């Protein structure tokens, strides 16, 4: 979970000046899919700011071929659930998911979408995976754009491999190590 590996049976064969490549049809299809992810942003809360930041030129979601938003679920491949989803919104989210055409993927953006976060109460859905299946969880409150890009690359990797199991974006480094160093410095 969360590891990126790229096994492939594709190979490039060079014959003199020119050459050709061999691959499996499914791999070619997956390769095409992973670089043309049309997104449906289901944006409900403050994580939206970080989502906008990720989508704008500084972090540039377009590099991964997933910049095109589609505000009808019928044309979308990836459902980005960005922010807290309340119990009242859950039927809407489910309906949007059901309207998307296969193949489809869901990204839970931020802690609230992943688990409900600290909204542990009567009003809030404790994680969208109670209602729709989630492919990638991106923890963070909100997650940094780097983490979002990590999540997107993880999704691309899963699409390439045909892997359907959910993945969680890991932190780039263990935050506990910082704490240890801080204690050593001050202690």
């Amino acid at each position: 979970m969360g590891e990126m590996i790229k096994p492939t049976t594709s190979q490039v064969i060079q014959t003199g000046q020119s050459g050709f490549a061999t691959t499996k049809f499914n791999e070619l299809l997956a390769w095409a899919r992973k670089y043309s992810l049309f997104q449906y942003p289901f944006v409900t809360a403050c994580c939206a700011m970080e989502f906008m930041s990720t989508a704008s030129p500084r972090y540039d979601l377009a590099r991964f071929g997933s910049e095109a938003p589609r505000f009808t679920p019928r044309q979308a491949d990836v459902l980005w659930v960005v922010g807290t989803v309340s119990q009242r919104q859950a039927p809407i989210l489910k309906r949007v998911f059901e309207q998307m055409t296969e193949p489809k993927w869901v990204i839970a953006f931020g802690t609230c979408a992943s688990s409900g976060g600290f909204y542990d109460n009567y009003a809030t859905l404790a994680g969208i995976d109670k209602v729709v299946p989630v492919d990638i969880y991106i923890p963070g409150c909100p997650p940094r754009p780097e983490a979002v890009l990590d999540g997107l690359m993880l999704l691309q990797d899963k699409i390439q491999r045909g892997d359907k199991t959910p993945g969680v974006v890991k932190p780039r480094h263990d935050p506990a190590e910082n704490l240890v160093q801080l204690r050593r410095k001050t202690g």
Partner: protein
Amino acid sequence: MAQKLLDILIERFGDSVVLETHNHCGDETAVIDAAHWREVATFLRDDPRCKMNMLADLCGVDRFDAEPRFEVVAHLNSLHFAHRLRIKARIGDEDGEGALLDSLVPVWAGANWFERETYDMFGIKFEAHPDLRRILLYEEFEGYPLRKDYPAAKTQPLVPYREGPDVLDKLPPFGADEGMVFGRKHLDYVKEED
């Protein structure tokens, strides 16, 4: 400043209507007899010495184990005199029954959504409210979540949660001993046994 308002209120209505007054950090409060709630509000709006032309907030309080159980709090502003006053009414018995109060919508139109929210969260009903429905929660919701006896962990999902082999073994929220340290375990109010 607003002490003057309290004096005006007491002078006009007397101790039988203005049950209690107090002052905390310069914010004056008057506890009003529930039967005269709208009458006092109308007076505060119309009297040339008060001119409370703005209802800044209206909300409920569950005082649990106290009698009357609920308190409706209204924060009034005067944009003309720049003074403010908080008025309260106490209603409802121990079981939350009989929580009924006159609506302030005829006095300040802005009370409409505030009263709907108070109804939504506490189940306090407002008489003569034009449209007393839930405002934040959904119609299917049973009970009133901000009452102290509403179980802290109780949710009422509108769609059934997913089941089946593709669902992860462990879906949040996790067990009672997992998750956040400030969890909801100790938050349930239990009535003291007599």
